[in-house]
């Protein structure tokens, strides 16, 4: 920061470490903020749409991830600039709220800022710009609601849901198998959804990944998959009509929590103690057996002695099952979690059609599948794929698809994708702009231009001529009064997105426009940046 001098030429030290702070004011501050934010948006813009490209990100530890998901890209870019960070958070909050459309929201914010920059150059007060954007946003949202359509999620074996999932998966690396994966996602969500309350607890869908095989081998297990195997190699690999005993106590003599020591004064006492310990094991196994359980899952470990005893008693057991898995299994099988052996009763056991150990490929890794559970409340999606990177990306893609389906269950209104909704809004906003008499008119018009930026970007990414195709789509929308005309990214020969069945949820689109406007407004309101000099 610049120094001030008093009447005697001595510098003022007003702020701490004044010399090391940098201050930007006014137009300089706006421009630097906008440029930083735009840089982030530009990085993402090539990932938008079904023909969007992926990014390869290398973390400081050398881990490589390849992804197309906006939120993941910006998160892994480790952005330092404070304004650019706002866009990162924007993308993440879209991820948290909706789960899908994380790229679109950042691209839209970037387009809005680009427009704001030209308006600033014209000399319009930044708050007038943000007022205009705000009004335009309201108009766009209202219009979105009028062009939205309600879909029947039950009809035709949930065809609409599958289509929506396919749209979400369309831009990802797994797009070749989007139909299969979409079906898996839809079934998974419907299994855990509470349709009466329109609530879906995503915690109940477990996504497990395993490299090897191909993406086609991905499957839905109406039960739970845990990355564990039987505690003893000679135990049976499959238990039919399983009665599961879920234990949160180890197969070992109970230890008092209070600090204790045992004084052994004679050899007899020692023997007694040994026998007593043995007795504990026998009792424990007996208690489990007596309840009728034919498999025990234990949150803790047990030593080889106990393991041997379990084998002898023909009681298959699994050790070190994680807490979250225990909970999921309990939900799915209707089991009650048992904290100590004395409390085991037959009612507390969970029931499942089968518990079996499965082996993958030639590797020695095994997993345990619990299927046909008594009350299927929890499901697992097992994702397979050629490499870790593919599997990770597939996991993110399926997560997006699941989120889309969840949103449709919450609110079954959709708009059509392919940039058609944005174009329709742009037309509406442009019309509105002419009715406004004040300076905001310019800002509103620019908002419409920014909205057009999305189909533009889509067309660009697909290798189409952006200007021609957007102009064509726009004129057809106006001529036919059909808000469903978009960009034919897949070159299927029709630009009507209803025919192409590109569905997007209304809530996601609404959220995108609202969030982007909000963040742009925030960036436009900053006229002063005070930061350490090295930033």
């Amino acid at each position, binding site marked *: 920061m610049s120094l001030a001098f008093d009447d005697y030429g001595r510098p003022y030290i*007003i702020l701490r470490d004044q010399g090391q702070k940098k201050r930007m004011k006014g137009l300089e501050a706006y421009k630097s903020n906008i440029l930083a934010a735009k840089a982030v948006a530009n990085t993402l813009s090539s990932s938008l749409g079904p023909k969007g490209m992926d990014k390869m990100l290398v973390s400081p530890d050398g881990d490589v991830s390849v992804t197309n998901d906006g939120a993941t890209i910006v998160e892994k870019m480790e952005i330092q600039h404070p304004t650019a960070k706002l866009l990162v958070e*924007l993308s993440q909050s879209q991820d948290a709220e909706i789960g899908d459309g994380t790229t679109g929201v950042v691209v839209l914010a970037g387009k809005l800022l680009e427009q704001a920059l030209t308006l600033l150059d014209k000399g319009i007060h930044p708050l007038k710009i943000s007022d205009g954007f*705000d009004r335009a946003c309201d108009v766009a949202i209202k219009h979105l609601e009028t062009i939205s359509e309600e879909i029947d999620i039950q009809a035709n074996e949930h065809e609409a849901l599958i289509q929506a999932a396919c749209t979400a998966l369309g831009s990802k690396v797994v797009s070749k198998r989007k139909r299969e994966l979409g079906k898996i996602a839809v079934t998974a969500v419907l299994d855990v959804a509470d349709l009466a309350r329109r609530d879906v607890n995503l915690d109940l869908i477990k996504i497990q990944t395993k490299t090897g095989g191909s993406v086609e081998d991905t499957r839905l297990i109406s039960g739970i998959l845990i990355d564990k195997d039987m505690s003893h190699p000679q135990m049976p690999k499959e238990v039919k009509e399983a009665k599961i005993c879920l234990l949160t106590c180890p197969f070992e003599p109970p230890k*008092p929590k209070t600090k*204790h020591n*045992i004084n052994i004064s004679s050899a007899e006492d020692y023997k007694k103690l040994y026998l007593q310990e043995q007795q504990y094991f026998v009792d424990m196994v007996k208690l489990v057996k007596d309840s009728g359980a034919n498999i025990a899952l234990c949150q803790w470990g047990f030593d080889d002695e106990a393991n041997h005893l379990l084998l002898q008693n023909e009681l298959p057991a699994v050790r070190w099952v994680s807490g979250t898995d225990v909970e999921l299994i309990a939900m799915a099988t209707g089991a009650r979690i048992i904290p100590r052996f004395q409390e085991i009763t037959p009612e507390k056991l969970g029931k499942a059609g089968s518990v079996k150990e499965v082996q993958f490929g030639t590797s020695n890794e095994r997993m345990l599948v619990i299927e046909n559970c008594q009350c299927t409340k929890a499901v697992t999606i097992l994702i397979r794929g050629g490499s870790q990177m593919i599997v990770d990306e597939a996991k993110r893609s399926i997560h997006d698809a699941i989120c889309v389906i969840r949103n449709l269950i919450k609110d079954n209104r959709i708009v059509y994708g392919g940039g058609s909704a944005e174009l329709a809004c742009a037309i509406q906003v442009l019309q509105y702009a002419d009715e406004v008499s004040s300076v905001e008119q310019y800002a509103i018009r620019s908002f419409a231009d920014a909205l057009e930026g999305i189909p533009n970007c889509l067309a660009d990414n697909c290798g189409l001529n952006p200007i021609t195709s957007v102009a064509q789509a726009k004129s057809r929308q106006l001529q036919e009064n059909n808000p469903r005309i978009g960009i034919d990214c897949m070159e299927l020969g029709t630009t009507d997105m209803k025919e192409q069945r590109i569905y997007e949820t209304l809530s996601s689109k609404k959220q995108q426009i609202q969030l982007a406007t909000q963040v742009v407004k925030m960036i436009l*309101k900053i006229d002063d940046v005070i930061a350490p000099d090295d930033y």
Partner: protein
Amino acid sequence: MSQFLQPTILLLREGTDTSQGRAQIVSNINAVQAVADVVKSTLGPRGMDKMIQTGPKVTISNDGATILNLLEVVHPAARVLVDIAKSQDDEVGDGTTSTTLLAAELLKEAKPFIEEGIHPQIVIQGYRKALELALEKLEGFSINIAKDSAQDKRDTLLKCAQTALNSKLLANTKHFFSELVVSAVEKLDPNILDRDLIGIKNVTGGSVTDSFLVDGVAFKKTFSYAGFEQQPKRFENPKICLLNLELELKSEKENAEIRIEKPEEYQSIVDAEWALIYEKLEIIVKAGAQIVLSKLPIGDLATQYFADRNIFCAGRVTQDDLLRVQKATGGQVQTTVNGLNPETFGTCGLFEEVQVGAERYNLFKNCPQSRTATIVLRGGAEQFIQEAERSLNDAIMIVRRCFKANKIVAGGGAIELEISRFLRHYARSVTGKTQYIVNSYAKALEVIPRTIAENAGLNSIEIMNKLRQKHAQGGEEGRWYGVDINGASGVCDTHSSFVWEPTLVKRNALCSATEAACAILSIDETVKNPKSDQDTKMKPKGQPGRPPMGMRR
């Protein structure tokens, strides 16, 4: 020559910075000016925000007190400004920027007098006199709203909240949020109006208008153990048991040690420990509790025990939240389960766990004795929500004040101009130097409308002329003319356009600004000791005790 070499008398430690006299006052005034300049552009409905980066943390704010605090001002005189902004924030919660600006402007007006050789004490006297008159007039001008009906009062509160939100990020949704804030404050006990009982929870994601008010308590799902998901998540009229008790299988005393002499005793110790925890759990269940909340952890054993009995539990609830639950549900926090009886249980209309953004939230709604409210704020980015929270905080404070004080004045610079007009008029009737000084005070007050106009990009000179003319006409008509940022003329009657502020805010602003100005004017010497840590900095870096490199040979 030697007679010229007077021995220097070292009175202070070497490095001590002393400055004195008139020059010191002028220098202090300049420093204050520099600081006030930073916050100047945040004033008014077209005020801008500042982005301040301190370490890895970035704050975007429009709140004067927050900005000044983050600037890390070290200049001793300028720090006075930071302090008055803070005191204004603590006392009334809003108007921090205007207080700072006013103080700086008063000093600026005083500068020529000091330079011309008028004794600072005379300036101070004049300012004090002017303040006295200004406060008197402020009371006279303010409009009492106490006698109006409940509906009118609510309207007034809404207007005041909107005025406070005008300059913030939330300006476009001010109607929505003023409603939220007023409803929240109305929930409180009108005699105490404890600010702590309005909780604000931030959840990123969603639009700002997705924010909502819970007439009760809301808090984020606490850390839970396995078995939690098997608990019921919805109750109507539940019995809520509040505890400050750890429900876990653990050693009763940290330092206790047990000596076990015979192997047979082993089991009995284990059983005894289990019995202890089970006894506690059983008492709670027997008493009929349906929801158990504890400030301390509730372990996996207890979680599963409750799940088996269809009881909901949450451990590690923060102190604030537990306090609010207590107030809302009428329960009492127990530190032991001995003698637990259903009378200490609270209740509410509806308990539910719902998904808000990416989080799951516990909501206690429709509380019978609800004296508390929670605002769940939504928004696109972390910084956005934080700034929204600060803005709402200002609005809540304003509404609270208004609730108590019942008196309002019109904002937009109208009241400042009116007082200014009066003081100018008064100045003509006094003799002596005071005349000039009261006049300066009047001039300094104009800084508020002038800055509002400047920030809005209006021609401030033209606007000021128009406003002065309106006010000079006197009477009821011109009294409430202030800056209008939307209209073409730039001025309007701010009272009829509902830019209202509680009198108390203005009163406090005037008092603390004048006091601060007087305090700075009366300082004529600064003795600044060198920083004690400077010595340590001079030492060569490296391991202590190691001889410098050059010495090793």
